[in-house]
Protein backbone atom coordinates (compact mmCIF):
# COMPACT_ATOMS: atom_id res chain seq x y z
CA UNK A 1 0.00 0.00 0.00
CA UNK A 2 1.23 3.50 -0.74
CA UNK A 3 2.65 5.20 2.35
CA UNK A 4 0.50 8.25 1.68
CA UNK A 5 -2.61 6.10 1.62
CA UNK A 6 -1.55 4.42 4.85
CA UNK A 7 -1.26 7.81 6.52
CA UNK A 8 -4.74 8.76 5.32
CA UNK A 9 -6.08 5.55 6.77
CA UNK A 10 -4.52 6.36 10.13
CA UNK A 11 -7.12 9.12 10.15
CA UNK A 12 -5.16 11.92 11.78
CA UNK A 13 -6.08 14.46 9.02
CA UNK A 14 -2.58 15.73 8.48
CA UNK A 15 -2.22 18.38 5.81
CA UNK A 16 0.07 17.65 2.88
CA UNK A 17 2.95 19.61 4.41
CA UNK A 18 2.69 17.53 7.59
CA UNK A 19 2.41 14.31 5.60
CA UNK A 20 5.51 15.30 3.69
CA UNK A 21 7.37 15.84 6.96
CA UNK A 22 6.31 12.52 8.44
CA UNK A 23 7.15 10.56 5.31
CA UNK A 24 10.31 12.50 4.53
CA UNK A 25 9.08 13.28 1.02
CA UNK A 26 8.90 16.60 -0.83
CA UNK A 27 5.42 18.08 -0.55
CA UNK A 28 5.03 17.98 -4.35
CA UNK A 29 5.51 14.23 -4.21
CA UNK A 30 2.75 13.82 -1.63
CA UNK A 31 0.47 15.98 -3.79
CA UNK A 32 1.38 13.94 -6.85
CA UNK A 33 0.61 10.72 -5.01
CA UNK A 34 -2.75 12.07 -3.86
CA UNK A 35 -3.55 13.09 -7.43
CA UNK A 36 -2.56 9.67 -8.68
CA UNK A 37 -4.80 7.98 -6.06
CA UNK A 38 -7.69 10.16 -7.19
CA UNK A 39 -6.96 9.82 -10.91
CA UNK A 40 -6.82 6.06 -10.69
CA UNK A 41 -10.09 6.00 -8.79
CA UNK A 42 -8.51 4.51 -5.67
CA UNK A 43 -9.26 7.50 -3.49
CA UNK A 44 -12.89 8.39 -4.15
CA UNK A 45 -13.43 11.39 -1.94
CA UNK A 46 -13.01 13.20 1.33
CA UNK A 47 -15.99 13.25 3.59
CA UNK A 48 -16.22 13.94 7.30
CA UNK A 49 -17.59 11.16 9.47
CA UNK A 50 -20.46 12.37 11.63
CA UNK A 51 -21.85 10.86 14.75
CA UNK A 52 -25.41 10.11 13.57
CA UNK A 53 -26.59 10.28 17.17
CA UNK A 54 -25.41 13.86 17.45
CA UNK A 55 -25.44 15.45 14.02
CA UNK A 56 -28.10 18.08 13.51
CA UNK A 57 -29.26 16.92 10.10
CA UNK A 58 -32.37 14.78 10.02
CA UNK A 59 -31.48 11.69 8.10
CA UNK A 60 -33.29 8.41 7.93
CA UNK A 61 -31.05 5.57 6.93
CA UNK A 62 -32.24 2.22 5.65
CA UNK A 63 -30.71 -0.96 4.34
CA UNK A 64 -32.69 -2.63 1.62
CA UNK A 65 -32.27 -6.22 0.55
CA UNK A 66 -33.08 -6.44 -3.13
CA UNK A 67 -33.64 -9.56 -5.22
CA UNK A 68 -33.14 -9.05 -8.93
CA UNK A 69 -33.07 -11.33 -11.93
CA UNK A 70 -29.70 -11.39 -13.70
CA UNK A 71 -29.79 -10.54 -17.37
CA UNK A 72 -28.26 -12.45 -20.22
CA UNK A 73 -24.95 -10.74 -21.11
CA UNK A 74 -25.43 -8.01 -18.49
CA UNK A 75 -25.44 -10.19 -15.36
CA UNK A 76 -26.25 -8.14 -12.27
CA UNK A 77 -24.10 -5.22 -13.34
CA UNK A 78 -26.43 -3.21 -15.49
CA UNK A 79 -29.31 -3.37 -13.01
CA UNK A 80 -27.04 -2.65 -10.08
CA UNK A 81 -25.66 0.43 -11.86
CA UNK A 82 -29.14 1.58 -12.63
CA UNK A 83 -30.19 1.30 -8.99
CA UNK A 84 -26.97 2.88 -7.76
CA UNK A 85 -27.59 6.03 -9.77
CA UNK A 86 -30.51 7.11 -7.60
CA UNK A 87 -29.53 10.01 -5.37
CA UNK A 88 -31.05 8.25 -2.35
CA UNK A 89 -28.63 5.33 -2.71
CA UNK A 90 -25.48 5.82 -0.66
CA UNK A 91 -23.88 2.44 -1.27
CA UNK A 92 -24.84 -0.65 -3.21
CA UNK A 93 -23.23 -4.08 -2.99
CA UNK A 94 -23.75 -7.44 -4.68
CA UNK A 95 -24.05 -10.04 -1.94
CA UNK A 96 -23.91 -13.79 -1.65
CA UNK A 97 -26.86 -15.51 0.04
CA UNK A 98 -30.57 -14.97 0.30
CA UNK A 99 -30.75 -11.77 -1.75
CA UNK A 100 -28.66 -10.13 -4.45
CA UNK A 101 -28.13 -6.43 -3.78
CA UNK A 102 -27.71 -4.71 -0.46
CA UNK A 103 -28.64 -1.05 -0.83
CA UNK A 104 -27.90 1.65 1.76
CA UNK A 105 -30.37 4.45 1.22
CA UNK A 106 -31.03 7.77 2.96
CA UNK A 107 -33.88 10.22 3.04
CA UNK A 108 -34.96 13.17 5.11
CA UNK A 109 -37.81 11.21 6.65
CA UNK A 110 -39.41 7.79 6.71
CA UNK A 111 -41.87 8.71 4.01
CA UNK A 112 -39.16 9.76 1.62
CA UNK A 113 -37.32 6.45 1.92
CA UNK A 114 -40.58 4.50 1.71
CA UNK A 115 -41.52 6.38 -1.44
CA UNK A 116 -38.10 5.71 -2.93
CA UNK A 117 -38.50 1.99 -2.32
CA UNK A 118 -42.07 1.65 -3.52
CA UNK A 119 -42.06 4.11 -6.41
CA UNK A 120 -38.51 3.94 -7.68
CA UNK A 121 -36.69 0.84 -6.61
CA UNK A 122 -39.46 -1.76 -6.65
CA UNK A 123 -40.67 -0.59 -10.04
CA UNK A 124 -37.33 -1.02 -11.79
CA UNK A 125 -37.63 -3.76 -14.38
CA UNK A 126 -35.91 -6.88 -13.09
CA UNK A 127 -36.36 -6.11 -9.39
CA UNK A 128 -38.20 -9.11 -7.94
CA UNK A 129 -38.59 -8.10 -4.32
CA UNK A 130 -37.33 -5.72 -1.65
CA UNK A 131 -37.08 -5.88 2.13
CA UNK A 132 -36.41 -2.59 3.88
CA UNK A 133 -34.91 -2.20 7.37
CA UNK A 134 -34.64 1.17 9.05
CA UNK A 135 -31.73 2.10 11.25
CA UNK A 136 -32.75 2.75 14.83
CA UNK A 137 -29.50 3.55 16.52
CA UNK A 138 -25.77 3.66 15.73
CA UNK A 139 -23.19 1.98 17.92
CA UNK A 140 -20.19 2.19 15.65
CA UNK A 141 -19.73 4.43 12.63
CA UNK A 142 -16.93 3.68 10.19
CA UNK A 143 -14.50 2.59 12.84
CA UNK A 144 -15.61 5.06 15.49
CA UNK A 145 -17.22 3.69 18.61
CA UNK A 146 -20.27 5.60 19.83
CA UNK A 147 -22.44 5.48 22.90
CA UNK A 148 -19.86 3.85 25.10
CA UNK A 149 -18.49 5.81 27.97
CA UNK A 150 -15.45 6.35 25.79
CA UNK A 151 -12.02 4.98 26.33
CA UNK A 152 -10.74 7.52 28.76
CA UNK A 153 -7.21 7.15 29.87
CA UNK A 154 -5.64 8.15 33.14
CA UNK A 155 -2.25 7.53 31.63
CA UNK A 156 0.38 9.55 33.49
CA UNK A 157 2.14 12.16 31.36
CA UNK A 158 5.52 10.80 32.34
CA UNK A 159 6.11 7.17 33.16
CA UNK A 160 8.74 4.49 33.21
Amino acid at each position, binding site marked *: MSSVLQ*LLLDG*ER*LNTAQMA*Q*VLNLPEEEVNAELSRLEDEGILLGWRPIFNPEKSQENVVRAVIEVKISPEREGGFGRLAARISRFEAVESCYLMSGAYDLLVFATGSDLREVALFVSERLASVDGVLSTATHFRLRTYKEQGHLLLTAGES*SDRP*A*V*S*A
Partner: protein
Amino acid sequence: MEKDSTRFIADHVIGLPRSGIRDFFAIVAAMPEAISLGIGEPDFVTPWNIREASIFALEKGRTSYTDNKGLIQLRREINVYVENNFGISYNPDSEILISVGVSEALDIALRAVLNPGDKVLYHEPCYVSYSPSIILAHAQPIAVGTSAEDQFGIDPAAVEAAWEPGCKVLMLNFPTNPTGGVTERDKLERIAKFAVEKDLLVISDEIYSELTFEGEHTSIAMLPGMKERTIFLHGFSKAFAMTGFRIGYACGPAELIEAMMKIHQYSMLCAPILSQEAAIEALKNGGPAVAKMKEQYHQRRDFIVRRFNEIGLTCHLPKGSFYAFPSIQSSGMSSMDFCTGLLEAESVAVVPGTAFGPSGAGFVRASFSTSYKRILEAADRIERYAEKVCS
Protein backbone atom coordinates in the same frame (compact mmCIF):
# COMPACT_ATOMS: atom_id res chain seq x y z
CA MET B 1 6.13 15.16 70.92
CA GLU B 2 6.35 12.25 68.47
CA LYS B 3 9.69 11.64 66.95
CA ASP B 4 10.07 11.57 63.18
CA SER B 5 9.14 8.06 61.94
CA THR B 6 12.13 7.99 59.63
CA ARG B 7 14.02 6.06 62.29
CA PHE B 8 11.94 2.96 61.47
CA ILE B 9 13.01 2.86 57.80
CA ALA B 10 15.70 0.37 56.83
CA ASP B 11 19.11 1.81 56.05
CA HIS B 12 19.31 0.48 52.51
CA VAL B 13 15.87 1.93 51.70
CA ILE B 14 16.65 5.36 53.19
CA GLY B 15 19.65 5.60 50.90
CA LEU B 16 17.65 4.65 47.83
CA PRO B 17 16.95 7.59 45.51
CA ARG B 18 13.43 8.14 44.23
CA SER B 19 12.96 7.46 40.55
CA GLY B 20 13.97 10.49 38.51
CA ILE B 21 10.90 9.81 36.39
CA ARG B 22 8.75 10.24 39.46
CA ASP B 23 10.37 13.59 40.23
CA PHE B 24 9.92 14.85 36.73
CA PHE B 25 6.36 13.57 36.62
CA ALA B 26 5.55 15.83 39.58
CA ILE B 27 6.72 18.84 37.57
CA VAL B 28 4.81 17.86 34.42
CA ALA B 29 1.64 16.99 36.34
CA ALA B 30 1.28 20.68 37.16
CA MET B 31 1.06 21.46 33.43
CA PRO B 32 -1.77 19.37 32.04
CA GLU B 33 -1.76 21.19 28.68
CA ALA B 34 1.84 20.20 27.90
CA ILE B 35 2.56 17.87 24.98
CA SER B 36 4.12 14.86 26.63
CA LEU B 37 6.81 12.78 25.00
CA GLY B 38 7.38 11.41 28.47
CA ILE B 39 5.22 8.33 28.51
CA GLY B 40 6.92 4.99 28.88
CA GLU B 41 4.09 2.91 27.55
CA PRO B 42 2.19 2.36 24.31
CA ASP B 43 -0.35 5.04 23.42
CA PHE B 44 -2.56 2.26 22.07
CA VAL B 45 -5.26 0.75 24.23
CA THR B 46 -4.99 -3.02 24.70
CA PRO B 47 -6.48 -4.71 21.60
CA TRP B 48 -10.14 -5.47 22.18
CA ASN B 49 -9.92 -9.25 21.73
CA ILE B 50 -7.47 -9.34 24.64
CA ARG B 51 -9.64 -7.14 26.83
CA GLU B 52 -12.68 -9.18 25.86
CA ALA B 53 -10.99 -12.41 26.95
CA SER B 54 -10.49 -10.90 30.38
CA ILE B 55 -14.11 -9.74 30.57
CA PHE B 56 -15.32 -13.18 29.52
CA ALA B 57 -13.24 -14.78 32.25
CA LEU B 58 -14.76 -12.39 34.76
CA GLU B 59 -18.27 -13.20 33.56
CA LYS B 60 -17.56 -16.90 33.89
CA GLY B 61 -16.55 -16.32 37.49
CA ARG B 62 -12.91 -17.07 37.00
CA THR B 63 -11.86 -15.03 40.01
CA SER B 64 -9.79 -17.49 41.99
CA TYR B 65 -6.12 -17.92 42.78
CA THR B 66 -4.20 -19.92 40.21
CA ASP B 67 -1.28 -22.29 40.55
CA ASN B 68 1.58 -20.26 42.08
CA LYS B 69 3.47 -20.60 38.83
CA GLY B 70 0.45 -19.42 36.84
CA LEU B 71 -2.19 -21.13 34.69
CA ILE B 72 -0.71 -24.16 32.95
CA GLN B 73 -2.48 -23.17 29.68
CA LEU B 74 -0.66 -19.86 29.76
CA ARG B 75 2.69 -21.48 30.51
CA ARG B 76 2.14 -23.83 27.57
CA GLU B 77 1.32 -20.90 25.28
CA ILE B 78 4.43 -19.10 26.50
CA ASN B 79 6.56 -22.09 25.67
CA VAL B 80 5.14 -22.14 22.13
CA TYR B 81 5.63 -18.39 21.74
CA VAL B 82 9.19 -18.36 23.04
CA GLU B 83 10.08 -21.36 20.91
CA ASN B 84 8.62 -19.73 17.78
CA ASN B 85 10.19 -16.34 18.37
CA PHE B 86 13.45 -17.14 20.10
CA GLY B 87 14.04 -20.79 19.21
CA ILE B 88 14.38 -21.87 22.84
CA SER B 89 12.07 -24.32 24.56
CA TYR B 90 11.15 -24.36 28.26
CA ASN B 91 9.23 -27.01 30.14
CA PRO B 92 5.87 -25.44 31.09
CA ASP B 93 5.71 -27.55 34.27
CA SER B 94 9.02 -26.59 35.78
CA GLU B 95 10.82 -23.91 33.82
CA ILE B 96 8.23 -21.10 33.47
CA LEU B 97 6.80 -18.80 36.13
CA ILE B 98 4.10 -16.17 35.55
CA SER B 99 4.86 -12.93 37.37
CA VAL B 100 3.23 -9.57 38.04
CA GLY B 101 5.00 -7.79 35.20
CA VAL B 102 8.67 -8.16 34.37
CA SER B 103 9.40 -5.86 37.32
CA GLU B 104 8.36 -8.52 39.80
CA ALA B 105 10.19 -11.22 37.87
CA LEU B 106 13.35 -9.11 37.95
CA ASP B 107 13.00 -8.52 41.66
CA ILE B 108 12.45 -12.14 42.62
CA ALA B 109 15.16 -13.35 40.25
CA LEU B 110 17.67 -11.08 41.99
CA ARG B 111 16.44 -11.98 45.45
CA ALA B 112 16.54 -15.68 44.62
CA VAL B 113 20.18 -15.69 43.57
CA LEU B 114 21.97 -12.90 45.44
CA ASN B 115 23.66 -13.11 48.82
CA PRO B 116 24.45 -9.90 50.70
CA GLY B 117 27.52 -8.32 49.15
CA ASP B 118 27.31 -10.13 45.79
CA LYS B 119 27.97 -7.91 42.81
CA VAL B 120 25.77 -7.42 39.76
CA LEU B 121 26.86 -6.01 36.40
CA TYR B 122 24.28 -4.04 34.42
CA HIS B 123 24.44 -1.61 31.55
CA GLU B 124 23.53 2.05 31.82
CA PRO B 125 21.56 4.18 30.94
CA CYS B 126 18.87 1.68 31.74
CA TYR B 127 15.42 1.25 33.13
CA VAL B 128 15.07 3.07 36.44
CA SER B 129 14.54 -0.02 38.60
CA TYR B 130 17.74 -1.91 37.84
CA SER B 131 20.13 -0.45 40.36
CA PRO B 132 17.51 -0.08 43.14
CA SER B 133 16.38 -3.70 42.66
CA ILE B 134 19.95 -4.87 43.14
CA ILE B 135 20.36 -2.73 46.26
CA LEU B 136 17.05 -4.01 47.66
CA ALA B 137 18.47 -7.52 47.28
CA HIS B 138 21.41 -6.38 49.47
CA ALA B 139 23.83 -6.68 46.59
CA GLN B 140 26.14 -4.21 44.94
CA PRO B 141 25.34 -2.76 41.50
CA ILE B 142 28.20 -2.27 39.06
CA ALA B 143 27.22 -0.10 36.10
CA VAL B 144 28.75 -0.66 32.68
CA GLY B 145 28.38 2.55 30.72
CA THR B 146 27.13 2.53 27.14
CA SER B 147 27.58 5.41 24.75
CA ALA B 148 26.06 7.10 21.75
CA GLU B 149 29.15 6.07 19.71
CA ASP B 150 28.05 2.43 20.14
CA GLN B 151 24.37 3.39 19.63
CA PHE B 152 24.02 2.43 23.30
CA GLY B 153 24.70 -1.24 22.65
CA ILE B 154 26.96 -2.89 25.21
CA ASP B 155 30.66 -3.21 24.47
CA PRO B 156 31.94 -6.65 25.55
CA ALA B 157 35.31 -5.13 26.44
CA ALA B 158 33.56 -2.75 28.85
CA VAL B 159 31.85 -5.69 30.55
CA GLU B 160 35.18 -7.46 30.91
CA ALA B 161 36.81 -4.32 32.28
CA ALA B 162 34.02 -3.72 34.79
CA TRP B 163 34.09 -7.27 36.11
CA GLU B 164 35.61 -7.77 39.53
CA PRO B 165 35.79 -10.66 42.00
CA GLY B 166 32.39 -11.22 43.60
CA CYS B 167 30.39 -10.57 40.41
CA LYS B 168 27.65 -13.15 40.20
CA VAL B 169 25.05 -11.78 37.81
CA LEU B 170 24.98 -9.86 34.53
CA MET B 171 21.75 -8.07 33.66
CA LEU B 172 20.91 -7.30 30.02
CA ASN B 173 17.96 -5.48 28.47
CA PHE B 174 17.95 -5.02 24.69
CA PRO B 175 16.36 -3.12 23.08
CA THR B 176 16.89 -0.78 26.00
CA ASN B 177 14.70 1.73 27.73
CA PRO B 178 15.60 4.67 27.46
CA THR B 179 18.06 4.53 24.56
CA GLY B 180 16.54 2.06 22.10
CA GLY B 181 20.01 0.52 21.90
CA VAL B 182 20.48 -3.09 20.83
CA THR B 183 23.47 -5.42 20.95
CA GLU B 184 24.36 -7.45 17.89
CA ARG B 185 24.78 -11.18 17.98
CA ASP B 186 28.58 -11.21 17.60
CA LYS B 187 28.97 -8.98 20.64
CA LEU B 188 26.52 -11.09 22.64
CA GLU B 189 28.57 -14.14 21.69
CA ARG B 190 31.67 -12.60 23.19
CA ILE B 191 29.73 -11.61 26.31
CA ALA B 192 28.32 -15.14 26.54
CA LYS B 193 31.84 -16.57 26.40
CA PHE B 194 32.90 -14.22 29.17
CA ALA B 195 29.85 -15.19 31.25
CA VAL B 196 30.85 -18.85 30.95
CA GLU B 197 34.46 -18.08 31.80
CA LYS B 198 33.51 -16.15 34.95
CA ASP B 199 30.52 -18.38 35.75
CA LEU B 200 28.06 -15.49 35.64
CA LEU B 201 24.31 -15.93 35.72
CA VAL B 202 22.64 -13.74 33.08
CA ILE B 203 19.26 -12.12 33.64
CA SER B 204 17.94 -11.02 30.26
CA ASP B 205 14.95 -8.66 30.13
CA GLU B 206 13.34 -9.07 26.70
CA ILE B 207 10.40 -6.69 27.21
CA TYR B 208 11.09 -4.64 24.04
CA SER B 209 12.22 -7.55 21.85
CA GLU B 210 9.16 -7.50 19.55
CA LEU B 211 9.75 -3.81 18.90
CA THR B 212 13.01 -4.38 17.04
CA PHE B 213 12.98 -2.43 13.78
CA GLU B 214 16.25 -3.44 12.18
CA GLY B 215 17.50 -6.98 11.82
CA GLU B 216 16.58 -9.99 13.91
CA HIS B 217 16.48 -9.69 17.66
CA THR B 218 18.89 -12.03 19.42
CA SER B 219 18.52 -12.94 23.06
CA ILE B 220 21.65 -14.11 24.83
CA ALA B 221 19.59 -17.10 26.04
CA MET B 222 19.52 -18.35 22.42
CA LEU B 223 23.29 -18.74 22.24
CA PRO B 224 24.88 -22.17 22.72
CA GLY B 225 25.46 -23.02 26.36
CA MET B 226 23.55 -19.98 27.64
CA LYS B 227 20.08 -21.33 28.32
CA GLU B 228 21.30 -23.10 31.44
CA ARG B 229 22.82 -19.92 32.88
CA THR B 230 20.17 -17.41 31.81
CA ILE B 231 16.94 -16.30 33.40
CA PHE B 232 14.85 -15.12 30.46
CA LEU B 233 12.33 -12.43 31.43
CA HIS B 234 9.55 -11.25 29.20
CA GLY B 235 6.10 -9.75 29.45
CA PHE B 236 3.09 -8.31 27.71
CA SER B 237 3.22 -4.62 28.63
CA LYS B 238 4.99 -3.10 25.66
CA ALA B 239 4.37 -5.21 22.55
CA PHE B 240 0.76 -6.06 23.42
CA ALA B 241 0.02 -2.66 25.01
CA MET B 242 -0.96 -4.32 28.30
CA THR B 243 0.92 -2.24 30.88
CA GLY B 244 -1.98 -2.04 33.33
CA PHE B 245 -2.50 -5.81 33.29
CA ARG B 246 0.83 -6.19 35.10
CA ILE B 247 1.70 -9.54 33.60
CA GLY B 248 5.05 -11.04 32.71
CA TYR B 249 7.01 -14.26 32.98
CA ALA B 250 10.35 -15.80 33.76
CA CYS B 251 11.85 -18.82 32.01
CA GLY B 252 14.97 -20.58 33.17
CA PRO B 253 16.56 -23.63 34.73
CA ALA B 254 14.04 -25.50 36.92
CA GLU B 255 16.06 -25.01 40.13
CA LEU B 256 16.14 -21.25 39.66
CA ILE B 257 12.47 -21.01 38.71
CA GLU B 258 11.67 -23.08 41.81
CA ALA B 259 13.70 -20.70 43.99
CA MET B 260 11.94 -17.69 42.45
CA MET B 261 8.61 -19.45 42.90
CA LYS B 262 9.22 -19.65 46.66
CA ILE B 263 9.53 -15.87 46.93
CA HIS B 264 6.65 -15.31 44.53
CA GLN B 265 4.48 -17.75 46.47
CA TYR B 266 5.03 -15.99 49.79
CA SER B 267 4.89 -12.43 48.52
CA MET B 268 2.54 -12.42 45.52
CA LEU B 269 0.89 -15.85 45.64
CA CYS B 270 0.07 -15.68 41.96
CA ALA B 271 -0.41 -13.19 39.15
CA PRO B 272 -4.02 -11.95 38.81
CA ILE B 273 -6.07 -14.57 36.99
CA LEU B 274 -7.86 -12.02 34.77
CA SER B 275 -4.52 -10.81 33.47
CA GLN B 276 -3.42 -14.37 32.88
CA GLU B 277 -6.57 -15.06 30.87
CA ALA B 278 -5.93 -11.94 28.81
CA ALA B 279 -2.33 -13.04 28.24
CA ILE B 280 -3.47 -16.39 26.83
CA GLU B 281 -5.57 -14.56 24.24
CA ALA B 282 -2.68 -12.18 23.51
CA LEU B 283 -0.36 -15.07 22.68
CA LYS B 284 -2.94 -16.97 20.68
CA ASN B 285 -4.37 -14.12 18.59
CA GLY B 286 -2.48 -10.93 19.35
CA GLY B 287 0.12 -11.21 16.61
CA PRO B 288 -1.55 -9.03 13.94
CA ALA B 289 -2.23 -6.21 16.42
CA VAL B 290 1.40 -6.29 17.58
CA ALA B 291 2.60 -6.08 13.97
CA LYS B 292 0.34 -3.12 13.28
CA MET B 293 1.48 -1.19 16.34
CA LYS B 294 5.11 -1.96 15.54
CA GLU B 295 4.70 -0.54 12.04
CA GLN B 296 3.32 2.66 13.55
CA TYR B 297 6.23 3.00 15.97
CA HIS B 298 8.67 2.35 13.16
CA GLN B 299 7.33 5.19 11.01
CA ARG B 300 7.12 7.59 13.94
CA ARG B 301 10.67 6.72 14.92
CA ASP B 302 12.02 7.51 11.47
CA PHE B 303 10.33 10.88 11.59
CA ILE B 304 11.30 12.00 15.07
CA VAL B 305 14.93 10.89 14.77
CA ARG B 306 15.27 12.75 11.49
CA ARG B 307 13.77 15.87 13.07
CA PHE B 308 16.08 15.75 16.09
CA ASN B 309 19.08 15.58 13.79
CA GLU B 310 17.74 18.45 11.66
CA ILE B 311 17.24 20.49 14.81
CA GLY B 312 20.86 19.87 15.76
CA LEU B 313 20.15 17.57 18.69
CA THR B 314 22.23 14.65 17.48
CA CYS B 315 20.26 11.44 17.76
CA HIS B 316 21.41 7.90 16.98
CA LEU B 317 18.86 5.64 15.31
CA PRO B 318 17.24 3.57 18.07
CA LYS B 319 16.97 0.07 16.60
CA GLY B 320 14.16 -0.90 18.96
CA SER B 321 11.69 0.29 21.63
CA PHE B 322 9.63 3.49 21.28
CA TYR B 323 12.20 5.92 22.61
CA ALA B 324 14.54 8.36 20.96
CA PHE B 325 17.50 9.47 23.05
CA PRO B 326 18.93 12.63 21.49
CA SER B 327 21.97 14.45 22.79
CA ILE B 328 21.35 17.92 24.16
CA GLN B 329 25.04 18.64 24.66
CA SER B 330 24.98 21.43 22.06
CA SER B 331 22.90 23.43 24.57
CA GLY B 332 25.61 23.21 27.21
CA MET B 333 22.85 22.64 29.74
CA SER B 334 22.30 19.78 32.17
CA SER B 335 19.61 17.30 31.12
CA MET B 336 17.35 18.43 33.94
CA ASP B 337 17.76 22.14 33.10
CA PHE B 338 17.12 21.47 29.42
CA CYS B 339 13.93 19.56 30.23
CA THR B 340 12.53 22.03 32.74
CA GLY B 341 13.44 24.89 30.39
CA LEU B 342 11.71 23.17 27.48
CA LEU B 343 8.65 22.56 29.61
CA GLU B 344 8.48 26.17 30.75
CA ALA B 345 9.22 27.76 27.39
CA GLU B 346 7.33 25.46 25.03
CA SER B 347 5.20 23.13 27.17
CA VAL B 348 6.82 19.97 25.86
CA ALA B 349 7.78 17.21 28.27
CA VAL B 350 10.75 14.95 27.65
CA VAL B 351 12.55 13.04 30.39
CA PRO B 352 16.09 13.96 31.51
CA GLY B 353 18.58 11.23 30.57
CA THR B 354 19.98 11.31 34.08
CA ALA B 355 16.77 9.68 35.34
CA PHE B 356 18.25 6.51 33.82
CA GLY B 357 21.64 6.74 35.45
CA PRO B 358 24.58 9.15 35.48
CA SER B 359 25.70 8.06 32.00
CA GLY B 360 22.44 9.48 30.66
CA ALA B 361 23.83 12.98 31.31
CA GLY B 362 23.68 15.15 28.21
CA PHE B 363 20.70 13.28 26.76
CA VAL B 364 16.93 13.32 27.03
CA ARG B 365 14.40 10.56 26.41
CA ALA B 366 11.59 11.37 24.00
CA SER B 367 8.91 8.74 23.63
CA PHE B 368 7.36 8.55 20.16
CA SER B 369 4.46 6.53 21.43
CA THR B 370 2.01 9.31 20.61
CA SER B 371 0.07 10.66 17.63
CA TYR B 372 1.73 12.26 14.59
CA LYS B 373 -0.01 15.54 15.28
CA ARG B 374 1.59 15.73 18.70
CA ILE B 375 4.98 14.56 17.49
CA LEU B 376 4.94 17.11 14.66
CA GLU B 377 3.97 19.93 16.98
CA ALA B 378 6.43 18.84 19.67
CA ALA B 379 9.27 18.72 17.13
CA ASP B 380 8.49 22.28 15.98
CA ARG B 381 8.44 23.52 19.55
CA ILE B 382 11.68 21.74 20.43
CA GLU B 383 13.24 23.32 17.36
CA ARG B 384 12.19 26.78 18.53
CA TYR B 385 13.60 26.09 21.98
CA ALA B 386 16.85 24.65 20.64
CA GLU B 387 17.39 27.69 18.44
CA LYS B 388 17.41 29.78 21.59
CA VAL B 389 19.51 27.61 23.88
CA CYS B 390 21.94 25.86 21.53
CA SER B 391 24.93 27.72 20.21
